[in-house]
């Protein structure tokens, strides 16, 4: 115990020596004087050592505190510096506000976009272990990629070695009848395996089972449908739900947020899940309409599964050369397929925002460096009084820290506002828009961005400025001319800003040009003045083709009578929105080896005056006549692209082609029309064949109406006319053609606008930064200019020197910017259409602007300075 007392009394670094010596002497005394005496001695030693030890400890601590205080180290120094920085900023509110606002805008914009990026792209699909889910698509002579056929799916299910489970879907839009107002609603047929594979239990009732697929008469509802249509009634299980006139018994309700993922829509599109009829699965190997999703088996990779599926496709190609001869398979990670493209585009915008933030930081860094130059006298005095370099850095950094803190806090507020704003302007077809919010991760990102800005614009100038040379600075009186290393740093900021501004400007210009190109494409039809809506007669009443024909005939007649309607027709798929297609055998060509050979031709059903409504020009022959629908004649109208491909240099009239080979079902060309871009504005027109209703089968149709006068009124009247024919067939998806066309561009427009905004901001910031920094430093060289003029240098010579300097910096910035443009080519090229990835006009223009600003920034203060009489300049101490 006394040993502990002795030890504790002493400072730690003396403890061992003291205790050791005392122990050694104790040992000697024991043998000399006896144990008891030795113990008494030891006790007395311990007690007497306490006071000197404690006093010595206190004296040491006080001495250390004084040293810390003089060196500027320790917590107290940090707090003092922050206080000093705050007072300094308060004296210059304009500067502080400008910096905080600039940073807040940069941090806020970047944070908001990160929030969007995270919600839309980074967030996983809301299903258990969703990273294991893959999409299995078929590829072939037509390219990549399309859905599978039923028999192919069944074979995959039998022969695979790589999946825990597979499921096939058939997304549909059926009419919910039996309500006050019938309503078209999206849902899907799905194999029962889907529920087990997706590992989600129903919230109520049961999921679909294999037996249901024999004779489908049951349905499982989504949570959304149960809430919206059934008002979340607890007794809905066992009730009947009528879809297209057919009753289905409700057997289950899935939990909220559940959906079977489909490649043709985001999660949450399917309102109901019907059993996939086995009959449909086992027919028609050559007809491909069913997307297939699968879950990888534990330990299986995408590449392994790909190889396995390719093996199966090779077997099928041998067994069924007609239908599968040239087909293969391609697997996609589901999340990447659904969100990859949009994620990549959002990532680009995020990158642009980050560049703007970087430029803003460069601005502030340049300013901070300039201000530190003006404080060199003060810093030298501090160093002379014993402040360590670390203390000086901390002093200079404190201000940046406070500014970044302010920028970060205000930036978060900006981010909240920006996210709300983005919710309004984001394209409606963008996924997960309603889930947008600022969460913990996004706030963390904001904090990181603010910290980054503090380091970026605060640390480097602080480190540089703290390398003071005492003697020269004190003599100079802190006149603000920089040491060479700091000059280089300042120059580097300017060069960097010019370069970044140029890169961003180039990217933005190209996107704008690309957008204009795509918009300016000739689509082959006239969208102004056209109203469209989907009508789908289905159910037992329309089991016969003749009933469907009668229905459409009546609709066309009634709608044609509506005041203001000039022409009306129907089409299976509107132009720009895809369709279904197949390869054809052209008569006169050698027989095909398999059904994947021959020109690819769109199948489009068109009735009435469709071509007139859409302004599609007839080039040869005639258009489809009403008789073509009823007589079952095999006359079809084709487009110019197919005519040129199948019969180059000849007239296509009277020529024949067939989709099937054995036996062929010949279709005779009765007319040739102009091309339309059926597959979107960016894909060149393909071969297209327009069928009358009788041959085209019953496909969901769009009513197209051209009118003069108020489209709103015409739309309402047309709706009424359609309902009057059969109230159980409600029109849905009502929109003008122009609005549809606009919506296809919504995403592209969104990206282009945002990046354009960022580019403008970037150029502005870069110009402002360059101007501010250059003019500040020129202004500080007033004295030097005075000396030069006193020594006889002409004013023009001095101006020339200053301007040359500025131009040189801008030139280096442009060079670096060109490197950046070249480096960013691969990124930009993926996003532009119809233009090259480098815009010379922009580079020249942008460079001109930035060089011009630099020259101006140098010239104006220099001009003012040389007009001051040299004597006054020299006196400006």
């Amino acid at each position, binding site marked *: 115990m006394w040993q502990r007392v*002795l030890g504790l009394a002493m400072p730690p670094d003396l403890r061992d*020596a003291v205790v050791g010596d005392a122990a050694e002497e104790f040992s000697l005394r024991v043998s000399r004087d006896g144990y008891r005496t030795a113990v008494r001695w030891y006790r007395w*030693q311990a007690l007497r050592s306490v006071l000197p*030890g404690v006093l*010595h400890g206190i004296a040491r601590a006080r001495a250390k505190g004084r040293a810390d205080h003089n060196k500027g180290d320790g917590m107290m120094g940090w707090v003092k510096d922050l206080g000093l920085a705050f007072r300094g900023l308060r004296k210059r509110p304009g500067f502080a506000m400008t910096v905080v606002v600039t940073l807040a805008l940069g941090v806020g914009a970047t944070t908001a976009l990160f929030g969007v990026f995270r919600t839309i792209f980074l967030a996983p699909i809301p299903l258990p272990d969703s990273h294991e889910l893959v999409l299995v698509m078929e590829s072939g002579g037509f390219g990549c990629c399309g859905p599978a056929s039923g028999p192919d799916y069944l074979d995959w299910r039998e022969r695979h070695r790589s999946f825990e489970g597979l499921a096939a879907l058939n997304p549909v839009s059926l009419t919910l009848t039996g309500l006050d107002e019938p309503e078209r609603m999206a849902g899907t047929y799905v194999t029962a395996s889907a529920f087990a594979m997706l590992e989600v239990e129903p919230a109520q009732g049961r999921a679909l089972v294999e037996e249901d697929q024999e004779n489908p008469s049951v349905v499982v509802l989504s949570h959304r449908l149960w809430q919206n249509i059934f008002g979340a009634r607890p007794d809905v299980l066992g009730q009947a739900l009528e879809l297209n006139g057919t009753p289905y018994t409700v057997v289950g309700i899935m939990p909220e947020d559940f959906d079977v993922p489909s490649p043709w829509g985001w999660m949450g599109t399917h309102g109901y899940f019907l059993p996939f009829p086995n009959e449909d699965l086992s027919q028609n190997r050559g007809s491909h309409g069913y997307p297939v999703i699968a879950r990888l088996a534990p330990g299986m990779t995408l590449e392994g599964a790909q190889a396995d599926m390719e093996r199966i496709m090779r077997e099928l190609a041998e067994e069924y050369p007609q239908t599968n001869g040239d087909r293969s398979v391609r697997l996609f990670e589901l999340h990447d397929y659904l969100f990859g493209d949009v994620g990549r585009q959002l990532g680009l915008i995020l990158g642009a925002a980050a560049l703007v933030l970087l430029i803003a930081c460069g601005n502030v860094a340049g300013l901070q460096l300039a201000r530190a130059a003006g404080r060199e006298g003060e810093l030298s005095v501090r160093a002379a009084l014993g402040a360590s370099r670390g203390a000086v850095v901390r002093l200079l950094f404190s201000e940046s820290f406070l500014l970044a803190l302010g920028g970060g806090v205000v930036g978060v507020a900006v981010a909240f506002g920006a996210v709300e704003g983005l919710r309004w302007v984001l394209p409606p077809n963008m996924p997960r828009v309603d889930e947008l919010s600022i969460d913990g991760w996004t706030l963390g990102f904001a904090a990181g961005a603010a910290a980054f800005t503090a380091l970026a614009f605060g640390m480097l100038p602080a480190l540089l400025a703290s390398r003071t040379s005492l003697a020269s600075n004190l003599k100079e009186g802190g006149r603000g001319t920089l040491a060479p290393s700091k000059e280089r740093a300042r120059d580097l900021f300017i060069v960097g800003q010019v370069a970044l501004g140029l890169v961003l400007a180039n990217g933005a210009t190209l996107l704008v040009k690309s957008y204009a190109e795509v918009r300016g494409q000739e689509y082959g039809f006239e969208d102004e003045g056209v109203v469209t809506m989907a009508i789908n007669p289905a159910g037992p009443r329309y089991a016969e083709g003749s009933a469907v024909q009668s229905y459409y005939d009546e609709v066309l007649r009634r709608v044609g009578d509506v005041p203001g309607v000039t022409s009306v027709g129907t089409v299976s798929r509107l132009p720009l929105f895809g369709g279904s297609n197949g390869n054809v055998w052209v008569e006169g060509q050698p027989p095909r080896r398999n059904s994947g050979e021959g020109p690819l031709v769109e199948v489009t059903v068109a009735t009435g005056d469709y071509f007139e409504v859409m302004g599609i020009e007839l080039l040869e022959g005639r258009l489809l006549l009403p008789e073509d629908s009823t007589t079952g004649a095999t006359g079809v109208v084709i487009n110019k692209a197919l005519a040129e491909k199948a019969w180059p240099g000849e007239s296509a009239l009277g020529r024949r082609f067939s989709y099937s080979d054995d036996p062929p079902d010949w279709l005779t060309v009765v007319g040739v029309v102009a091309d339309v871009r059926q597959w979107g504005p960016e894909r060149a027109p393909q071969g297209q064949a327009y069928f009358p209703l009788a041959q085209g089968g019953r496909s969901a149709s769009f009513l197209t109406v051209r009118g003069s006068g108020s489209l709103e009124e015409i739309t309402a009247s047309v709706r009424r006319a359609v309902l009057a024919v059969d109230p159980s067939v409600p029109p849905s998806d009502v929109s003008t053609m122009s609005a549809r066309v606009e919506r296809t561009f919504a995403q592209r427009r969104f990206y282009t606008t945002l990046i354009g905004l960022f580019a403008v901001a970037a150029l502005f910031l870069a110009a402002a930064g360059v101007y501010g920094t250059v003019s500040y430093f020129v202004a500080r060289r007033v004295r030097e200019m005075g000396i030069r003029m006193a020594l006889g240098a002409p004013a023009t010579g001095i101006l020339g020197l200053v301007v040359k300097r500025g131009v040189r910096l801008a030139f280096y910035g442009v060079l670096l910017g060109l490197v950046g443009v070249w480096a960013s080519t691969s990124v930009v090229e993926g996003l532009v259409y119809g233009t090259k990835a480098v815009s010379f006009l922009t580079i020249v223009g942008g460079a001109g602007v930035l060089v011009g600003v630099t020259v101006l920034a140098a010239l104006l203060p220099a001009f003012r300075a040389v007009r001051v009489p040299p004597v006054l300049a020299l006196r400006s101490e």
Partner: protein
Amino acid sequence: MGEFEQLVLLAVLRLENDAYGMEVRGEIEKRTGRDISYGAVYTALDRLETKGYVAHRMGESSPERGGRARKYFRVQPEGREALRATRRALTVMWEGVAL
């Protein structure tokens, strides 16, 4: 330099300029009859080391010391100079003083 610090320095010098705490304490006790504590000795040595008058090296340990090493001190040239200065000052002040 205080009187006690002088005693400590002189003790180290007397011990062939390489002494650890126990030896210094023993030397002072033997010569002056003063029984000083280890706390006093080591705090003085620590102060002298801060001033640069002494420097230390670590020595051997032993079972009696509980495995703790000895800390040997030697007087530095600055320490010798300080002693000389103190002696000069005292000599000068003592001149002509009769007690």
